[in-house]
């Protein structure tokens, strides 16, 4: 029985560590400003009463009724998220029980927990790996603003520094009901999205001369 670690690590990882450090510094430098909330046009557009075609309706219906969640559970809020998935509140009623371990197959990122600078490149990578269309729910105080840890040296003050956030759920952590309410808000938002581009707004080669 060998007790002391007499063998060195087979894989020297100092270069990897160095690269990771570089990447973190890069991300840290590039995310001073928070990213604007997407779809800030929502209210104005609503006033103008945009017309959704029935194709849009079907596609939006499909998108909003099968939101598959990417696994990105850094900290405490993960347990309220699991509680929402679990037998008591059961988000699977909305077709959300499929947790996709691979971000390539996910639509929704629920950022359940504190984001540190060391983790930030990974979260951004997960977000970039998700195929369009994709949404983000910032769950809990840490997700919104860094919460209780925001004065710390290693905490990103809010996910909206790294990825655009669609819905903010306050709470530390929010109750599962609050999360389900946020998901429903997101569904309402998706329902307003226009999927098929408006033909009149496309550049029409025939009308080129007239313009």
């Amino acid at each position: 029985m060998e007790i002391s670690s007499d063998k060195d690590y087979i894989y020297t990882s100092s270069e990897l560590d160095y690269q990771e450090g570089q990447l973190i510094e890069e991300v840290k430098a590039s995310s001073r400003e928070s990213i604007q909330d997407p779809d800030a046009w929502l209210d104005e557009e609503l006033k103008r009463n945009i017309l959704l075609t029935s194709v849009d309706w079907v596609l939006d219906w499909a998108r909003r009724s099968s939101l598959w969640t990417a696994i990105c559970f850094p900290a405490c809020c993960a347990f309220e998220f699991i509680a929402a998935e679990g037998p008591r509140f059961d988000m699977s009623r909305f077709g959300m029980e499929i947790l996709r371990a691979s971000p390539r197959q996910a639509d929704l990122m629920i950022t359940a927990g504190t984001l540190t600078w060391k983790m930030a490149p990974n979260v951004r990578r997960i977000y970039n790996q998700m195929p369009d269309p994709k949404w983000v729910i910032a769950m809990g105080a840490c997700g919104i603003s860094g919460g209780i840890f925001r004065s710390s040296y290693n905490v990103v003050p809010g996910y909206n520094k790294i990825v655009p956030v669609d819905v903010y759920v306050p709470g530390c952590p929010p109750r599962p009901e609050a999360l389900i309410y946020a998901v429903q808000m997101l569904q309402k938002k998706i329902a307003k999205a226009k999927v098929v581009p408006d033909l009149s707004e496309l550049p029409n080669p025939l009308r080129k001369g007239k313009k």
Partner: protein
Amino acid sequence: MKFERYGIGIIKGMAVTIKHLLRHPTVTQFPDQRLNISRRSRGNELIWSREKCTGCATCAKTCPQGAIEIVTSTNMAENKYEVETYRVDTGYCIQCGLCVEACPYDALFMGYSYERAKYRRAELVQSNDELLESPSRPASGYFHPEIAETLPKQTLLVEKIVEKRKKK
């Protein structure tokens, strides 16, 4: 792996799952059915009472976050502080309840509601009149037992199941 028990363990486990298939699930279908949450629930927004508040800023001092911002001016006529702005950033607040505990004049309450998700970050910052109590913003009984008595009794998952068993 040795099937010393001839697969009895597997069969027992399968029996448990099939029993659950026939049993009633423990789900609360949230938007339609609602749980009565705890009477002491620390909900997502603070309830502030303008009348009782004297502007002493004890809450802001106790807050481990610094989420409460309070601006006062001195009212010479009545010889007291006048609160000009009382602002809480719900995005910072962690609902620890220390401010409610510390308030010497019972002017702060935890909120009882939790459906407070917003599309914009800026909407989470609330000030003055947005913080007052209203029918859509009831106060919770956290550190206020007199309010707790008026709130509905909490639904407990334990009781739900035990009662069902007795009926059978």
